[in-house]
């Protein structure tokens, strides 16, 4: 029996209406404590609206959301205290120094005056800005501004961090830095929800994934990113044969394998799920007299899974 992990975010039948359009159509999901959830979906899918509802900045038309056990509609201020939220388009007080930005953030987020300086310096250290405390925010590069903004959102040590498209517009070095920072925060058991179009980065640090499409949960709900790479189509492996038979594809199919493609001495097979699938496949191939000289699982990235879902919209990602 798996240990029970209390949910940090729970959404139930969330509906959100703008004056001219419905943005969310009854979304439900649960995010376990300590997970790093990738919120993915095409533009206009409702990701930002969903994040704003979770952050208790917008009130859903119907349904409920709890964050750290607190209802966002009943006690929005308690939710604000429990979270850090970085919107996709954020601003900074450009005329203030990095230290003053962080001290103000700490004080305004409820850190007592006597601890505000320490909290600010600690946050600066966590985001790698401790050597720029006296620099004006307006003088920072885009990547450093992003770090300062994240520093402001974590200065009060929130339980939940919501990052809306945090990597947008960052150069590769800044993205790597952001990725490292999220990993460090995740290691401190902060529950993190990240929306992004750059799925390759989410791969590095996300433990779970939720796809939203047209204001609805797509792909069957939250799945572990590890599971998402094992789609219902199975694990993909590339097999290279020594002196393969001319009718390699037919031969493999007659053995019951799902053959994705064959080319020369190579074949790509889809294996069913399960921990022993790879070992069993290899032993069967050898037992049938096929000379295997190479056998390597192919990684299915989040992007592959996302694109597959985006293409046919009906694929379920395990879970």
């Amino acid at each position: 029996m798996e240990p029970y992990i209390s949910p940090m975010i729970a959404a139930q039948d969330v509906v959100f209406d703008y004056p001219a359009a419905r943005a969310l159509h009854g979304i439900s999901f649960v995010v376990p404590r300590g997970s790093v959830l990738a919120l993915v979906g095409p533009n206009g899918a409702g990701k930002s609206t969903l994040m704003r509802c979770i952050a208790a900045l917008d009130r859903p038309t119907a349904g409920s959301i709890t964050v750290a056990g607190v209802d966002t509609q009943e006690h929005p201020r308690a939710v604000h205290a429990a979270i850090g939220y970085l919107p996709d388009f954020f601003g900074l007080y450009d005329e203030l120094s990095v230290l003053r930005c962080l001290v103000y953030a700490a004080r305004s987020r409820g850190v007592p005056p006597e601890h505000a300086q320490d909290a600010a310096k600690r946050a600066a250290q966590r985001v790698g800005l401790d050597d720029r405390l006296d620099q004006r925010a307006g003088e920072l590069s885009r990547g450093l501004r992003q770090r300062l903004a994240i520093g402001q959102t974590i200065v009060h040590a929130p339980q939940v961090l919501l990052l809306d498209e945090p990597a947008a517009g960052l150069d590769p070095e800044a993205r790597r830095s952001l990725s490292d920072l999220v990993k460090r925060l995740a290691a401190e058991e902060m529950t993190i929800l990240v929306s992004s179009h750059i799925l390759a980065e989410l791969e590095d640090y996300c433990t779970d994934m939720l796809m939203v499409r047209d204001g609805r949960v797509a792909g069957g709900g939250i799945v572990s990113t590890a599971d998402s790479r094992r789609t219902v189509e199975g694990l993909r492996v590339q097999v290279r044969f020594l002196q393969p038979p001319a009718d390699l594809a037919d031969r493999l199919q007659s053995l019951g394998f799902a053959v994705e493609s064959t080319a020369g001495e190579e074949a790509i097979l889809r294996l069913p799920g399960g921990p022993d699938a790879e070992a069993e496949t290899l032993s069967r191939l050898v037992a049938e007299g096929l000379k295997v000289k190479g056998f390597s699982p192919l990684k299915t990235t989040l992007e592959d899974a996302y694109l597959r879902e985006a293409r046919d919209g009906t694929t379920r990602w395990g879970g």
Partner: protein
Amino acid sequence: MNPEFQRNLWLEAGPKRLAWAGVALLVVYGATVILAEHRVLNGLGVAGVLVFISSALIWGSRIAGRAVGDEVGERTWDFQRLSALEPWSMTWGKLFGATSLSWLVALSGLFFVLLSVFKEGGPAMALQALLGCAAAAVLLQAGSMAVALLGVRRARAEGRAAAVRFTFGGVLGIFLILSVVGRLAPLRQFRMGAGLPSLFSSSDQHWWGLSISATWFAVMSLAAFAAWALVGAWRLMRLELQMRNAPWAWPGFVAFAAVWAAGSASGAAARWAAAGAVFAACAYVATFAEPADRVRLRKFVDLVRRGRWAEAAFDFPAALAPVLFTGIAVLGLTASGADAGHAPSPSVAAAAFAFLIRDLGIVAYFRFGPRPRRSDLGAVVALFLAYFVGGVARSALLFPDPNAAGISAVSGTIMALGAWTLAWKRIRAREHSTV
């Protein structure tokens, strides 16, 4: 120290800005001393008035409005809305922090004003000047902030970016328009004009049977309205911080304004008429000022239908209270009996009430339409045309005609039903597409 106040001090009252302000003031007062020759104190008093007006009333109210608008424009508002600060701390920290430099400059002007007034009229007059100046500044600044907060809410509901460029002009405009409107002959006839115009009157005021010096009446009125402006800014800040407001502040203000205006009228009928006019004006203001959020309105109607009054109270439409109060004023007017020459007859009041409901229906129809951005202008044009056509036709069917009030009342009621039927159709239209 309040962190919001502290942050604003860092930004607005840094050493460089203080130094520049000091230099500018030295130039102004130095030039005044040189030019005034033998009447230095009088000259400094005049300079002080100009400095105070330009700094506290004009510059200060502009900054107070921008204290919110700039946060929205620079995308720091969401961060502020997540703040742990209490709404009142956020309100006063922003209001007096953002205007800190303008207050410092204004205080220098006020100092010379008080010195001059003290010399001419003694301590009582100096106290009046101090209270009056401070109240006027707070009224305009807090009013400007409240209008900016309203603008942010309206923009969010209408799915557009908030614009605050007209905030100051709007507040000042309302202030001046109300001052002038009260002097108009038709209102003077009902002796309800003793409100704002009395701020500029020199004779004693008779208010609810009390005889009060005009200056003190003006000072106390300004102070009271300044307090209400602060309450308004604070209540709107609560909404921005996602707190829910029990519906007492706006109805309280409406009732206060009516009592204040009615106090200067003579006779029960005239008082009911004055109160009714204030209620009706507040209903128009509320209809235009409140965000056109049909989702919230539908929710309110749904809760009322299900009898969940306590929950519905939080979504109470702002126009509802003044409309109900107007109805009560019409009943009061009827009960008190018409006092020809001082108040409209009950039938005229009833007709005017029906036309008020019609007008609000027309405004709602436009504001809940598919293009909320142009709705205000559309509603104003529609109302203008409705009354213009009625005026040209001189038909009791199209405007509340005192000579055929019964016909006007019936016609107004039928038009009100039509307008609200159309408006409700728009309000209840469901959203289906995804943004």
